[in-house]
């Protein structure tokens, strides 16, 4: 048997020669190592991204002999003697890839950028094939790559454009004219590195000599445990440098995003409260640690009966998860206005319903990753995050360090959507790097990311609405229970936000909304785009349809009738004199609504006549969302300086997780300063060099950090104008180390280096400004001014239901969004399309079930073929507080989507889906139920 290669140890390697991006290369690796890992770690191709290690997401796609293949399911030895092409090679040498690059920039086809290498590589193979491009051809070719940000439509446009078959008007290029910066559809300023594969994400930053740390997790939702002989385990694996458990934590073994509720241990102590909870961690050589089978880690488990649902957790027999939270109730929320019983008494009609939604996984394509470094007595954390200063403060507490002894430097973030607000991997790498005094990196696998990080709260909602016979709402009573999982995370925020928003953007005088957040032995529920509001909208907007149907009133008309208007109080009694844009949005979709209903009537008559099982349905839903923290301080600070050579440096700490803060904040700043975008150099985010711009959350960056950027730009402008003693109207041009001030016919030139000395940071001029939204606390009935700004939205969807199969095919969205003022319309469209895609997932397919759907083939998110064309209508009502009138948008975009879809399914088929997701089986069952009535 000498033909069979026989190797002695698990570290045995063999030489593999291949052609990589046109060049002959050789590497010595274990033959069965995943090609993705070998390309990234041995051959310098960090442009190959790993999203799932299971062929489910396509991020790692490379071309092998020209064909796109997932490199994570390919053995390294299988490419010996073959050609492998990755994105970086393609954009350097391939003319079609160059066309794609230009088109992706122009269309805004990359948001966070983590899926972009897989998309680009696959698209390049399609263009090379010479196949005539249609939308379906592009979808079929690209269907193996998942994107969680864009909603796919702009990618499809970009590929069709690169292939020369897209007939759309050219979008504007970078604005040369200073007057057009705000409001211009400028390609994202950080787009090119994402499109060419040079962007540095969490797993791309670590130095080559970094050790690796991996986390040992509980396989049980609820169990007591004790460790076996850890020293013996370590001795059996000489590559292990360190085993970490709770006793190794120098500070507090506790973290949480809301300090009064902080309850989550870095390492569980004796009791594991959810499947996937961290128990220990192992740090050491990559070859050793990455190949450990943790099934053999010495832990003795004693399983206990878990409480996995709200009703389990509320039962008197249920285990109590936390002291001081009796009955597993973590907190409650309340908004009460008028008298709801009086309101029902005066109603001509009362409708009620019960609704529920499950856990939703964020499913960003980048699992948590980063590295940590000890520099003297300071700890530096590099990795993906949405909240660098909160991370810094949490890490300082865990490490027992002063906050300024921790530096957090966010890498590019491959999607966050709320989950990367909480710390996850940071303590494990931080602790190991601190103790070992060597750089230590960590990369969550897809499975551990899904098991252990936060989820959208499951909801169980009872709703009752009273109205007059002409359709005016007279009373609204909402009760919602939210499964907040094992630890607090953002559960209190959800409990507070939901009662404020559950009314929808309508005028309701008699209102009572009560919420509870309840602990279970599930992963912690946290922040996910909308903080509970998408769940409450599912109930409220479906029940509005019920009301309209029972009253015989057109569904859009009912919404227009009850829409909140300027000068009318919200359910917390807050009155906005301007900027209440819901009526404008409802009006904006009226033509699309009328046409869609006409089309549906015609198509359904035809379908009935020819025996087709397809029925067209049209649905509409509103949504609203308050920007920023609820009634709490929420400041952002932005700083800028001018260097002696005239470079304007913007310290921009509002983390860009793909939504576009780097571009939007810079646009606002440049507009306020009065210089072209090309004059501004971006710096940050980095807790050592950028001031705190808060967290990327709550749709607050455009509004709050944008205001700070505006104030900072104005302050710097004032300082510059003073140099030349010119008026407010003067134009600023900075060239070759000189500032030119043009004030009517007057022209002044200031040589910057001569004007004044540079400070320690190297700036001759510096400005810093903060902005904090004007809000007020809510009283005991939830009355007050929780937000300074609300954004509004209406979605109309057209879809086909197959009555026999219960399948739903989406045909078109028309989405009207009141953004106050669109700072960058292309990025607005990108947010709308991406939010709709997540709403589609919530409505039709997504449900995280602990222990059962912990990967991206059992947990389904929408693919390239699931998102229909989306027409975005940008409504600009302005805003009294927002920068140039701009409001936030990030969360508004998915709130109306799911209820609009559910309403359309009912319109098409009669099926009422109150318990999500509306899978084909549930839709079919609901159709049957409707037919039996």
């Amino acid at each position, binding site marked *: 048997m000498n033909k069979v290669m026989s190797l002695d140890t*698990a570290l045995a390697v063999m030489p593999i020669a291949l052609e990589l991006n046109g060049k002959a290369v050789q590497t010595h690796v274990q033959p069965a190592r995943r090609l993705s890992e070998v390309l990234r770690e041995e051959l310098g191709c960090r442009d190959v991204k790993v999203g799932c290690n299971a062929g489910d997401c396509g991020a790692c796609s490379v071309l092998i002999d020209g064909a796109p293949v997932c490199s994570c399911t390919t*053995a390294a030895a*299988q490419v010996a003697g073959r050609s492998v092409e990755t994105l970086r090679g393609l954009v350097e040498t391939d003319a079609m890839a160059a066309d794609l690059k230009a088109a992706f920039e122009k269309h805004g086809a990359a948001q966070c950028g983590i899926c972009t290498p897989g998309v680009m590589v696959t698209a390049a193979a399609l263009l090379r094939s010479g196949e005539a491009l249609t939308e379906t051809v592009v979808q079929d070719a690209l269907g193996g790559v998942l994107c969680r940000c864009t909603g796919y439509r702009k990618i499809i446009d970009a590929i069709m454009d690169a292939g020369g078959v897209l007939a759309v008007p050219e979008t504007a290029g970078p604005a040369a004219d200073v007057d057009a910066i705000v409001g211009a559809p400028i390609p994202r300023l950080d787009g090119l590195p994402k499109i060419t594969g040079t962007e540095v994400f969490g797993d791309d930053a670590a130095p080559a000599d970094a050790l690796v740390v991996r986390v040992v997790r509980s396989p049980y939702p609820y169990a007591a445990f004790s460790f076996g002989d850890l020293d013996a385990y370590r001795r059996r694996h000489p590559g292990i440098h360190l085993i970490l458990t709770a006793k190794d934590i120098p500070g507090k073994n506790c973290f949480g995003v809301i300090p009064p509720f902080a309850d989550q241990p870095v390492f569980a102590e004796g009791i594991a409260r959810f499947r996937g909870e961290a128990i220990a961690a192992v740090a050491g050589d990559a070859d050793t640690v990455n190949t450990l089978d943790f099934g053999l880690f010495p832990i003795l488990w004693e399983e206990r009966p878990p409480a996995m649902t709200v009703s389990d957790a509320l039962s008197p027999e249920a285990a109590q998860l936390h002291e001081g939270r009796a009955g597993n109730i973590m907190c409650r929320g309340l908004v009460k206005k008028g008298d709801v019983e009086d309101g029902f008494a005066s109603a001509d009609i009362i409708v009620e319903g019960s609704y529920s939604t499950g856990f939703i996984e964020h499913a960003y394509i980048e699992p948590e990753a980063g590295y940590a470094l000890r520099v003297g007595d300071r700890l530096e954390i590099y990795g993906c995050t949405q909240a660098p200063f909160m991370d810094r403060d949490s890490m300082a507490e865990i490490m027992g360090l002063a906050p300024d002894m921790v530096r957090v430097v966010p890498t590019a973030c491959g999607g966050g959507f709320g989950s990367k607000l909480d710390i996850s991997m940071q303590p494990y790498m931080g602790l190991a790097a601190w103790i070992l005094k060597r750089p230590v990196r960590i990369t969550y696998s897809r499975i551990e990311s899904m098991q252990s990080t936060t989820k959208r709260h499951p909801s169980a909602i009872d709703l009752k609405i009273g109205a007059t016979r002409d359709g005016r709402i007279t009373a609204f009573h909402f009760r919602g229970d939210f499964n907040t999982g094992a630890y607090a995370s953002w559960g209190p925020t959800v409990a507070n936000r939901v009662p404020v928003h559950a009314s929808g953007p309508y005028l309701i005088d008699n209102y009572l909304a009560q919420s509870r957040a309840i602990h279970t032995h599930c992963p912690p529920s946290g922040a996910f785009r909308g903080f509970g509001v998408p769940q409450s909208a599912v109930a409220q907007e479906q029940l509005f349809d019920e009301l309209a149907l029972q009253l015989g009133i057109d569904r859009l008309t009912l919404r227009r009738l009850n829409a909140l208007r300027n000068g009318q109080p919200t359910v917390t009694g807050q009155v906005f004199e301007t900027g209440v844009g819901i009526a404008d949005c409802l009006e904006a979709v009226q033509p699309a609504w009328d046409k869609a209903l006409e089309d549906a009537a015609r198509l359904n008559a035809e379908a009935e006549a020819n025996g087709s099982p397809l029925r067209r349905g049209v649905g509409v839903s509103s949504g609203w969302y308050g920007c920023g923290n609820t009634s709490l301080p929420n400041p952002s600070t932005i700083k800028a300086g001018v260097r002696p050579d005239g470079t304007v440096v913007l310290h921009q700490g509002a983390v860009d997780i793909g939504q576009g803060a780097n571009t939007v904040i810079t646009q606002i700043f440049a507009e306020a300063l009065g210089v072209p975008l090309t004059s501004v150099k971006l710096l940050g985010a980095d807790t050592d060099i950028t001031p705190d711009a808060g967290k990327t959350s709550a749709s607050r960056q455009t509004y709050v950090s944008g205001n700070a950027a505006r104030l900072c730009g104005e302050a710097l402008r004032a300082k510059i104008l003073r140099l030349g003693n010119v008026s407010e109207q003067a134009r600023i041009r900075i060239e070759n180390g000189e500032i030119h001030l043009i004030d009517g016919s007057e022209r002044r030139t200031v040589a910057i280096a001569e004007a004044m000395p540079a400070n320690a940071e190297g700036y001759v001029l510096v400005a810093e400004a903060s902005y904090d939204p004007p809000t007020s606390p809510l009283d005991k009935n939830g009355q007050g001014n929780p937000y300074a700004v609300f954004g509004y939205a209406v979605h109309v969807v057209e879809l086909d239901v197959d009555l026999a199969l219960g399948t739903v095919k989406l045909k078109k969205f028309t989405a009207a969004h009141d953004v106050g003022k669109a700072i960058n319309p292309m990025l607005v469209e990108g947010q709308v399309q991406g939010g709709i895609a997540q709403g589609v997932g919530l409505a039709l397919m997504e449900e995280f079930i602990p222990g059962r759907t912990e990967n991206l083939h059992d947990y389904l998110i929408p693919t390239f073929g699931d998102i229909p064309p989306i027409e975005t209508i940008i409504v600009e009502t302005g805003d009294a507080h927002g920068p140039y009138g701009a409001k936030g948008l990030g969360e508004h975009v998915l709130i109306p989507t799911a209820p609009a879809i559910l309403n359309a399914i009912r319109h098409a088929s009669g099926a009422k889906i109150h318990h999500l997701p509306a899978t084909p089986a549930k839709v079919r069952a609901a159709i049957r139920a409707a037919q039996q009535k």
Partner: protein
Amino acid sequence: MRYFSPHSAEEAVEALASGPFTILAGGTDVYPSLRDRPAPADILDISRIAELRGIEHSGDCWRFGATTTWTSVARAKLPPAFHGLQAAAREVGSAQIQNAGTIAGNICNASPAADGVPPLLSLDARVEILSPQGRRTVPLSDFIKGVRSIDLHPGELVTAILIPDIDARSAFLKLGARRYLVISIAMVACTIETAADGRVKAARIAVGACSPVARRLPGLEAALAGLPMEGGALAAAVRSDHLSVLSPIDDVRADGAYRREVVEELVKRALQQALGSAREMAA
């Protein structure tokens, strides 16, 4: 730890005789099944064996080499009897998976939801197996014994799928909760042979994801034989008791009752679709 990548089937079988190996071809099932565990210790990579790859027609048989990828199946110029199989090939995962995943890998993985199995069953496929003792063939319906369980003994290697050359119409329908990269809720494949008088000579219907192993529907097949191809007679002959061999379960994708209900509809539609292609042929 061993990694052996032979260039002939004979060498591969020789290697298998030396002890257990994980057989690797496209990798699209081997790697995902690892979850977070390390790669298996001993791997026999059969992807470089030229004789195991490709589609050949000789005499009255079509031979699909074991490591023929789904992309190759989808793009091959094949007669209408294979259109259902080709439709299934285009529904396997995604382009990436189809470029790597192989026809034999799909059957050896023995998932109840394997996309390739229903069309292969409806084509009366046989599995060719090589061992030091020689070659044997076994009907696919016997080869897959249960969930993740196949009739392959230690030391044996699947070398090809053999399909009789017949003049037939065919179709394949897959039902899932999203467009791509989706594990089927239910699948139906049908193959219909036509007699000279324009009636059904033989029909073979197979259903996937509704029993531990995809199943043919013998009662329905018998009922369809001799029926006229035109006038909707085939779809009209489908009765719910024809599905009694199925045992659909409740799982995260759908409940069993739903599967049983929609399969009946899918069978009718698959039959219509197969006839549709027949009409196109006639035109």
